[in-house]
């Protein structure tokens, strides 16, 4: 009977926990984790897991990158050769390289989707402006990772893509040439360029990335995830962070790992889309003629195409200079969205910024499709693609995507404010269907938006530019 009254002996786990708790005060952490909740809004919970998926791919990048580093040797006579050695001789070397490449692209995909979902849910609104900004910085760093890592195999494709990519830096006013030489380690792409890209890729960017990711996560932990907006239905109670949310997060990570494994096995050199392929090919030869049909990685394609759309000179500026100015302004607007969207800051609906996101998708999709020369009639580079038929086909596809999104917004979400996305589609139609110059079409679209907004204001005196609540 006495024995029954005594407490059961503590398990090893419990004893370890007590030991750690006595030293590090784990109780507080456990208490915090037990009470932490993730708000559940009227929208799908899927969007909450994309940041975690991005983090997962980043972790895979770190692990596979370290493994590659064990065999990779930067140098004119060793870079290409060591990658070749990794993929052909090192046990599971092919697997590690392929995982590194696939995971890099999937990280950018999940990051972009995460960013757009944050925009659509207005999760950036006060007080989470800095979380958005740090996310934007992470996006820029991820692009930097892609750009610097591309050159490291020192193959033909990487060499010429880097030469074209770095060349655009020349357009920066005043310091362009200096900046180009700093980036390249000289006036041309040489092995010195690879050395500094290598340092950037394996030391500088990972350190910065880990720092900014930590800050981003800290912000989220301190402020919690953004709750649903005031006008959205808030039917359900919050979801416990631990273990409910964590378990779902881990499940997604596992699904991502399965998907990664299948992709790596079935398509070890990528899906074969220009800007998303990593077959080693021939070693870089600076004296060889430029690689035909050279294109940057898919996430830079819209900038690449925009540069092509600009004439040699525009308003006293060089074409590339003007194009990069446009890209900088657009990126600036994107980074400052939490401060520009005042209605969301007041927890009011802001359809203008929802539409801005859709317009960005239409704008970039059209440019990307054109950069892929879809409909141009030359997949094998035997002849130059026809720009007119490319524009025609790409405009029809973009129009299809844009119309489908618009229908979904109208029918499922009862959204009506579509000035920006309408203007982006107008530009696509003018350029692709009617053959109007891309920039002229853009100017017409901007004028139509301004006229539309002015007319709306005149019809409803005292109305603001935004939709009623």
């Amino acid at each position, binding site marked *: 009977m006495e024995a029954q009254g005594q407490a059961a002996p503590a398990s090893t786990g419990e004893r370890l926990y007590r030991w750690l708790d006595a030293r590090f005060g784990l109780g507080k952490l456990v208490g915090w984790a037990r009470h932490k909740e993730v708000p559940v809004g009227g929208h799908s919970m899927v969007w909450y897991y994309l940041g975690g998926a991005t983090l997962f791919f980043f972790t895979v990048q770190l692990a596979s990158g370290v493994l590659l580093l064990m065999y990779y040797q930067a140098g004119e006579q060793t870079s290409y050769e060591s990658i070749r050695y990794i993929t052909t001789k090192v046990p599971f070397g092919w697997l590690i390289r392929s995982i590194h490449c696939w995971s890099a692209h999937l990280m950018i995909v999940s990051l972009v989707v995460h960013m757009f979902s944050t925009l659509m849910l207005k999760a950036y609104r006060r007080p989470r402006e800095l979380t958005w900004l740090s996310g934007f910085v992470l996006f820029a760093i991820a692009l930097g990772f892609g750009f610097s890592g591309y050159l490291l195999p020192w193959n033909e494709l990487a060499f010429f893509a880097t030469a074209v990519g770095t060349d655009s830096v020349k357009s920066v006013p005043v310091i362009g040439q200096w900046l180009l030489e700093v980036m390249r380690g000289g006036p041309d792409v040489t092995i010195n360029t690879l050395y500094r890209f290598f340092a950037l890729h394996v030391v500088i960017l990972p350190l910065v990335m880990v720092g900014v990711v930590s800050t981003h996560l800290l912000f989220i932990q301190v402020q919690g995830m953004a709750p649903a907006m005031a006008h959205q239905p808030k039917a359900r109670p919050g979801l416990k962070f631990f273990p409910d949310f964590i*378990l779902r997060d881990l499940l997604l990570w*596992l699904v991502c790992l399965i998907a990664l494994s299948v992709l790596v096995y079935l398509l070890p050199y990528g899906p074969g889309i220009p800007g998303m392929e990593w077959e080693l090919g021939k070693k870089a030869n600076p004296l060889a003629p430029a690689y035909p049909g050279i294109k940057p990685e898919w996430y830079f394609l819209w900038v690449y195409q925009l540069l092509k759309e600009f004439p040699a000179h525009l308003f006293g500026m060089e074409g590339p200079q003007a194009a990069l100015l446009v890209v900088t302004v657009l990126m600036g607007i994107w980074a400052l969205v939490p401060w520009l969207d005042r209605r969301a800051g007041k927890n009011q609906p802001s359809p203008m910024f929802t539409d801005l996101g859709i317009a960005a998708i239409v704008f970039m999709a059209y440019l990307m499709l054109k950069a892929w020369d879809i409909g141009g009639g030359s997949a094998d580079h035997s002849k130059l693609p026809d720009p007119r038929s490319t524009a025609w086909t790409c405009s029809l596809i973009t129009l299809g995507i844009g119309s489908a999104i618009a229908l979904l917004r109208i029918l499922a979400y009862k959204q009506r404010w579509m000035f920006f996305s309408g203007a982006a589609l107008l530009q696509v139609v003018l350029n692709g269907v009617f053959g109007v110059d891309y920039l002229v079409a853009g100017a017409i679209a901007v004028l139509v938006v301004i006229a539309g907004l002015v007319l709306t204001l005149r019809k409803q005196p005292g109305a603001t530019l935004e939709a009623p609540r």
Partner: protein
Amino acid sequence: MSALLALVLLLAAADPAAPAPDEGKLPASVEKLFEEKGKDGKPILGDTERAYLKKLPLHTRELIGKDVDAVTLGGAAHLKVLLSLELSSQAAAIVFSDNCILCHADPESQKKIHLFSADPKATGSNELLNLKNFVSDVHFRRGLSCAGCHGGSPDKDVMTPDIAARWPKADVRHQDRTWIPEFCARCHADPNFMRGYNPSLPTDQLAKYKDSQHGILLLEKKDSKAAQCVSCHGVHGIRGPKSRLSKVHPQAIPDTCGHCHADPKYMAGYQKADGTPLPTNQVEQFKKSVHGKALLEKGDLGAPACNSCHGNHAAMPPAVASVSQVCRTCHAQNATFFDGSKHKQAFEKHHWPECEKCHGKHDIAKATDAMISAAPDGLCGACHAENAKDNKECNETALYFRSSLTDLVTKQQELRPEAEELATRGLDTEPIQASLEELKEALVQTRTRVHTFDRGGFDQGAKAGREAIAKSESLLQATRSEQRYRRNGLLVSIGLMSFLAVAMAFKIRELSRRRAKDNEGRRTP
């Protein structure tokens, strides 16, 4: 300090070595030409001509001034013609010091029949008097100008009686072309003379020509339709055989020969040694042949043109006995194997041309494995039916060759795509590709060894091919096994991860149900 500065300035001013500044000043007489106006009232010479003249060295500008003063340069229009040639400064110095060119390029003083023009079509002058061609002529570029062939002296102001005295009279020389070879040979057959210009150029062209069919016709039978030097090399625009614009560049030779030999009217009356008319379809056949396609379509200058088999200056149809000697200059291995074969004796006995008998001559097609066949459409059938019909071994050997080659080719066609497929799956197929290259090389060797017409000789090549196939198959087997290992590894990993994922999904569902119950419990007091 100021004294030092003064000294430096003084030294700089007094430097005798410093050249006088030359700003491309033109002689006064040349300047005057810029005032001349054409029929439309506009100046004939403009800024382009002035810019060109200014770039010329001082002595060339002075030379032009002297030409104007001596009236060998007749006026602005005359100067414009010469400047339109865009000559280098060295070539300009030659042209402006040669009175023959100067006078014969003056549109004001020359009759059209004697007028050298930069564009004969536009001026209506003789097409052979094309100045642009003339200044790129190989003779002109080595310093030999009009006087070199026509006689006279380029520095004299008037025509002298010795000009053209070394030629037959105009009415004779255009009808009777027999004088041309000897005339060119005055220099080209003289080793001492040629040493001063082009020591590497042979000087036996005339001797060879005399023995050629063309030479016999022209010099012995006095047939002026027969080709001589000018027929192939041209006149007033002669270029070396390496120039793509030359009539004797390898790719131009079929058309140069075809100019006469593909013209039925021109060739009417000419016969072969057996008395049959000389055909005129050789060029057409050659262009469709494997050699013609290589030379004219693929741009392979190593491929033979007409002269490769017939010779250049000693052009003759190769005799039956020498046909194979011509072919073996390139296809040496095939010829050596043939020499050691049973066929050699048989061919000699029947006086058959060796290679030509099976492969043809001007219309040689790409050799295929299908040619080795005793069937009527094959190469062996017709001859063997007539000359060796009782020899069973021949047919068996032909069948063996054919089946062996077919086996090698079939295996090659099977293995290559499989290796490529595995490469796209990320597997290391370099050793397989190397082995398949060995097979490719062995196939070339085996096909060459068909000319031994002997199983033993043939098998030396085929054996290497069979070994390459065995090696490729073994490597492919190992690579396929690696692929299976990867696939199984993936399936096991996916299986484990999926199991874990399903377990987690159940746990999540259980948690969700528990939370829902808790929430309901809270709502109902």
